[in-house]
């Protein structure tokens, strides 16, 4: 396969080095800046040579530190809280999406049933809906329609005790955000997993059937273990979206349920940008996906290509 000119061509390797530098450079730059004092970042004289400090990280993590750094007088950034929200939302929505999506993909691949084509087509169509389009109805529904008891006895009691409209709505809860993330990611997961389930040999399933396993046993004990690579790929993509998403989370969360991306944007838009702290927060948000990428790049590439190349 190797062509004669693939060996030792300096220009070729120079191109590769340049590409690596360009794709990783900005990340490294941010990483370094997160260890610089704002004075150093702004003056720019220090460049590569500077005294690293963890002050930015201390400021970002001030609500979870067990000690009080003396350069912080007021802990304004509640990073720990947001980080836990991000984690809860991303993990639960990923798990739910995988289980539900996997079952649906199995049904679409293995069974002929009424409405199969409709489901398949609408799944495909829903993939193109941008989150910004979902924003309007979800914002309206979660705030006004998906509520418990607006006019009843309980609602009246809540109104008397706390004021307000007297209802408990989906907006502002973890479940509200998880629900929309699951729905949003399902089409993609179903689409990807279909191409893995097709490859599971039917004879294996039939053998299990003959041995007396029910359809759900066949699914959980035979099919699921065989499509682990596909599940891993789907998990990474679902987690990535749930972990990174900003728009819907910002519309649906309140002070207690907001996630890290919201924290970063809120801090960004303040008049006086504290670059060091923001870069530290950004690094903390970026680290889980970076670790994922390093550990599972093969699965990620499989996942990406499964959708497009296998058609």
């Amino acid at each position, binding site marked *: 396969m190797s062509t004669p000119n693939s060996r030792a061509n300096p220009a070729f390797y120079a191109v590769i080095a340049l590409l690596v530098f360009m*794709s990783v450079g900005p990340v490294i730059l941010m990483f370094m800046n997160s260890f610089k004092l704002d004075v150093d970042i*702004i003056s720019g004289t220090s460049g590569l040579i500077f005294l690293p400090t963890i002050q930015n990280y201390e400021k970002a993590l001030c609500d979870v530190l067990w000690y009080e750094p003396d350069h912080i007088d007021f802990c304004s950034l509640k990073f720990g809280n947001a980080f836990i929200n991000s984690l809860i939302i991303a993990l639960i929505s990923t798990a739910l999406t995988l289980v539900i999506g996997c*079952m649906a993909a199995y*049904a679409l691949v293995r*069974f002929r049933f009424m409405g199969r084509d409709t489901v398949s087509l609408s799944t495909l169509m829903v993939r*193109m809906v941008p989150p910004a*389009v979902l924003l309007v109805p979800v914002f309206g529904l979660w705030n006004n*329609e998906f509520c418990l008891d607006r006019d009843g006895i309980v609602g009246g009691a809540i109104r008397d005790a706390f004021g307000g409209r007297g209802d408990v709505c989906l907006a502002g809860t973890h479940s509200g955000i998880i629900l929309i993330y699951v729905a949003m990611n399902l089409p993609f997961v179903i689409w990807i997993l279909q191409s893995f389930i097709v490859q599971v040999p039917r004879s294996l399933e039939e053998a299990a059937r003959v041995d007396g396993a029910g359809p759900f046993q066949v699914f959980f004990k035979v099919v699921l273990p065989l499509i682990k690579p596909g599940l891993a790929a789907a998990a990474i993509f679902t987690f990535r979206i749930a*972990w990174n998403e900003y728009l819907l989370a910002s519309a649906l969360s309140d002070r207690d349920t907001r996630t890290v991306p919201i924290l970063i944007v809120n801090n960004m838009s303040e008049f006086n940008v504290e*670059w060091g702290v923001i870069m530290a927060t950004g690094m903390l948000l970026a680290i889980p996906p970076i670790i994922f990428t390093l550990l599972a790049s093969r699965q990620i590439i499989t996942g990406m290509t499964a959708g497009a190349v296998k058609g």
Partner: protein
Amino acid sequence: MRTAMANRLTPYMFMAPAAIIMAIALMYPLGYMVWGSFRDWNPSQTIGEAEFVGLKNYIFLWNDPNFHESLGVTLRFAFFVVTIEMIIGVGLALLLDREIRGISVLRTMFILPMMIAPVVVGLMWRYMYHPTVGTFNRFLDSIGLPRVDWLGDYALTSVIIADIWQWTPFIFILSLAALQSLPRSALEAARIDGATGWQQIIHIKLPLMMPVLIVTALLRLIDAFKVLEVILVMTEGGPGLSTEILALRISRTATEFRELGVAAAMSNYLLILLLLLTVGMFAFNRWQEARAARLNALVEEES
């Protein structure tokens, strides 16, 4: 009898959870949005409380120069982003489609930008584009060139560059996978016939890759309409309306100006646009696939 009944129900039992969730949290909201777009609706009302105004929101947008500006920005952004990324990504794949040591490490490096949160990507680039502190202007200073107001006069270009950085790898990886799954006999035959590297690319590789390339471009195109956070963090849509893409305008109309009805109508316009693009690309794809299959058969016959 009982098992036959159970058998018929099985697919529905597997399908039910997904169908229910997608019905509640995707289909119903989308229908709700269409319904809401005909009303003068603000976030504190249920849809029933909002006044029915017919096509007023749609007509308002149709005549609104700011909406046209946003639409233009969105289309320009999507067009340049997809075109440039396709050219660079496919080019790189053709260049790197050979056995080199450490290719897997290299690929990991390349996919890193895609995995980082858009919010973080936006803030990284906002820093690099900063007029005084930023990396680019410092570099220009150091080689004695005048500074550039990256996020001012050239805001849209700068935003496009950031997106190219983040998403070209996607196209690169997909094209590389497509290249490596090409039928080897075809390439072999061409080489024996004495085709130069360039001729192989133009006459064999690219035509055979075409179906995958089109799906890739389609995926990228749809995603280009979803981009929001990166631009929000970098420019907040400004200066003026120069980077206010539709997604940003929708979210602003809904949450800042609290006009859900108008935002819903805007979302519907965007959906229709996306639907047309998707259908068009699929039709084109089917045609190309048939062509590639014919080509494939031809090449195989000859070898």
